[in-house]
């Protein structure tokens, strides 16, 4: 309910895509039955190429993924990766501002871009015979972008309106910002992708130029083409348009890990706009690597069993049996450059039931740590997860997004393919182990969003430590 940010075409732009990995990740693998439709290659200048062939319609999705996102924002300049993404739609030394979009539209193409903590991606969806033309345009702005002060200033206002619309208008989004600010300190995941308002206000064109020079180059990018295309043509065109751009040969930013919390934290937030209370808990996860991939697969099934659908344990316990909640959900977002997250949320039926909901959530988690899940639960979670991967294959755009996002954080096609096998191989004992390994209360934070409550109520008002830094 609260956490779905859908793609909206037809003139409703989106710039930040908060990847909801319970959906995306559960869809992250091509079935082993037809892996031959995915090919990879690399140009001499370092540009990686992924082609996902699907010839049901004569259209393609063309994407360029830069391995740079909000985690690469310099300190004190949060929001620069995202702000810069907006500036990519301005002019180059051969195109006037807005001409890029006009040309795409004239060819019948849709386009947009999105920024996450780990990456920034630009895409066009268009008739497959236009592939060369969109590559030419995308390659042009990889290296020839022009910065005009007045345009950049006006775009800064647009970004501030975007922040107002997506974050400041949503108490739930504000709660998420506060939780992550505490949970991930001092890692860059502690900052929102769009940036803190007071820092966005101070960004300038020089910051944008620096970001461009440092991160926008073929050796820091991945080209993904999905749809009516094959590797030989794609590679030929890519060599023609992207091949001439020199690599930047810049070092990668060092990952900054979060500090361990000394104890579980709770943040209370009251907002006059809120009528329906919400509880959200986030567990911070270790960094993904090939050694823990199998236990992360077990964690994904664990979260499915706990919080997904109407057969999930939380739904059965809190909504069906105890009748103290009206909504539950959760997801595991394990594949990120640094720390992943496991998230669970509950909508209590009213504010008097907040404590009892949390108590029962803790009880359910304790059960997962001490007793094995049933065979039926395990099989159901696997079936649902693998069915979702098949449903996701219906969409060339979803396929392009899944491969682009995972490869931009360093996974290979083989890693993605292995994920399906890992899911199939999970046992009930693996899930018990994963529960003990990853649902570590001391590395979790719980947020409570309620309407303003009367003073004697034990729900406290906003905690200072959750505030964004103010200077």
């Amino acid at each position, binding site marked *: *309910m609260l956490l779905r940010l859908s793609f909206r*075409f*037809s*003139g*409703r*732009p989106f710039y930040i895509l908060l990847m909801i990995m319970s959906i995306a990740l559960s869809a992250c693998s091509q079935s082993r039955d037809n892996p031959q439709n995915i090919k990879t290659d690399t140009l001499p200048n370092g540009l990686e190429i992924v082609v996902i062939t*699907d*010839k*049901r*319609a*004569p*259209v393609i999705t063309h994407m360029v993924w830069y391995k740079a996102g909000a985690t690469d924002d310099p300190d004190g300049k949060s929001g620069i990766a995202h702000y810069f993404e907006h500036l990519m*739609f301005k002019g180059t030394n051969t195109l006037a501002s*807005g001409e890029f*979009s006009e040309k795409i*539209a004239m*060819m*019948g*193409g*849709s386009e947009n871009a999105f920024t996450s903590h780990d990456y920034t991606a630009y895409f066009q*969806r*268009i*008739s*497959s*015979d236009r*592939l060369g033309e969109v590559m030419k345009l995308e390659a042009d702005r990889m290296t020839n972008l022009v910065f005009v002060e007045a345009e950049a200033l*006006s*775009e*800064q*206002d*647009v*970004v501030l*309106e975007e922040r*107002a*619309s*997506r974050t*400041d*208008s949503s108490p739930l989004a504000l709660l998420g910002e506060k939780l992550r600010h505490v949970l991930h300190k001092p890692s860059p995941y502690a900052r929102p992708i769009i940036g803190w308002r007071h820092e966005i206000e101070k960004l300038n064109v020089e910051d944008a130029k620096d970001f461009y020079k440092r991160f926008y180059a073929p050796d820091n990018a991945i080209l993904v083409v999905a*749809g009516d295309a094959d590797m030989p043509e794609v590679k030929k*065109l890519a060599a023609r348009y992207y091949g001439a751009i020199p690599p930047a040969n810049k070092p990668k930013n060092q990952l900054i890990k979060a500090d361990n919390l000394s104890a579980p934290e709770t943040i209370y937030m009251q907002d006059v*706009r809120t*009528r*329906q209370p919400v509880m959200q808990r986030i567990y911070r996860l270790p960094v993904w690597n090939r050694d823990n991939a199998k236990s992360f697969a077990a964690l994904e099934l664990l979260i499915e069993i706990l919080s997904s*659908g*109407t*057969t999930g344990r939380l739904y*059965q316990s809190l909504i069906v049996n105890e*009748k103290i909640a*009206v909504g539950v959900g959760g997801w595991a977002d394990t594949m990120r450059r640094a720390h992943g997250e496991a998230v669970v949320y509950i*909508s209590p*039926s009213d504010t008097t039931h907040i404590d009892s909901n949390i108590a029962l959530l803790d009880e359910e988690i304790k059960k997962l740590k001490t007793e094995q899940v049933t065979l*039926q639960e395990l099989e*159901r979670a696997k*079936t*649902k997860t693998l069915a979702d991967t*098949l*449903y996701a*294959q*219906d969409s*060339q755009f979803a396929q392009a997004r899944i491969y682009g996002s995972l490869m931009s954080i360093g996974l290979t096609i083989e890693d993605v393919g292995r994920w399906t096998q890992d899911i199939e191989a999970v046992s009930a004992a693996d899930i018990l182990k994963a529960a003990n390994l990853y649902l570590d209360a001391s590395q979790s934070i719980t947020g409570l969003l309620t309407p303003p409550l009367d003073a004697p109520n034990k729900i406290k008002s906003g905690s200072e430590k959750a505030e964004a830094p103010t200077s």
Partner: protein
Amino acid sequence: MKHHTINLIVGFFFLIAFSVGPFSSSAEALEIRQLTSPKGIKLWFVKDTNLPIIQMRFLWRGGAANFDPGLIRFLSTMLDEGAGDLDATTFQTRKEDYGIKLSFSAEKDSFSGSLSTLSKHKDEAFSLLALAVNKPRFADTPLERMRQALMAGHRRSASDSGTIASETWWQNTLAGHAYGNAVRGTPEFTQKVTQGMLRKAHRQLFAQDNLIISVVGDIEETDLLSQIDKIFAELPVKNSLQQIKPFSTSDGSFVFVDFPGPQTEIIFGHIGIPFNDPDYYPALVVNHILGGGGFSARLMTEIREKRGLVYSVYSYLNEIGSLPVWMGRMGTSHKNVEEALTVLHVELQRMREDGPTEIELKNAKNYIMGSYALGFDSGRKIASKMLTAQYFGLPPSHFEKRNSYIEAVTLEDARRVARRLLKPDQLIITAVGQKATSE
């Protein structure tokens, strides 16, 4: 069994349309089959064996506006909460055990459903759907559970400025008419809904004569037809919906709702041009140039790109039953509301008086024609396109012909229809936010 096949609709057309380019397309052609089941249920079907999945979309004409407001939304939550000999938990468990996706959705003028299944679990999926469609239980315990979920939905709606703006706009535009009511109804009504009311609504709405179906996926035609009969042939032949009264829309107005937050959410619009009107396609082109897709629309250029007043602004043509509307939305800081609305008025007036330029018209037509294929690149999208075509009573050949209607729009048409469509002095506006305070 009678069925006829119309060949080559999707693929063939696009192969022709896109045959100029650096390399020729090798996309496969999918054919749309118009079928009638042995018991007389009609549907459109595309056989697609690329993936081992089946996607079905179906829709009954008649929705929230034919009933007490809120009743049909309630109904949409109850169909998979126990049916036939399965109680709610057993039904849901079976659904999830097989990875089946089944959902229902209520709109003002329709009630629709969506089923996705792996083809190997099709028998389970279709039998669950048959139970949900024909024998929902409406048992007390799940009914109370859904009531609580719907009450939470009311609370969320009441705290969302976008929802408030939209609902206020509809109420204000169609004062007193059923089309003006929110699909969710009111909390008071949700509290009063009974099993008897849901049963009656189900009986009135679910029939054969107001049903349309589309299916895409990996299934044999004969198998599908017998499944379709099991699901839908037991329904009454004729629906017994209450008719919707004629509506009249209000004159131009501005309604402000005080609501805390950093932005004012604005909905604007007035009566539109219906899909079956000869001026529909010119209107579609005019709207595209004014506030439709992409960054090059006039409202986007003037309000966002040049002035930085909004993150998003757009307009669109819509149709609720027999009511065509043209409407749009934007969100801006309180201090910018006046300027954003002024620019909006200026742009509407300019488009009304001068129409688009020749270049704008050419670009818009190129975009609308060129992007049409993007709506057919997944089974899910094809199923939904086929549902829409049936909803408007079009043949499958519409998909072939549609771009020729766009191509035929002349500058003269666009100018004339801009004048007919846009009425800045009759604009109905709702704004939800806070009055700007002078600093």
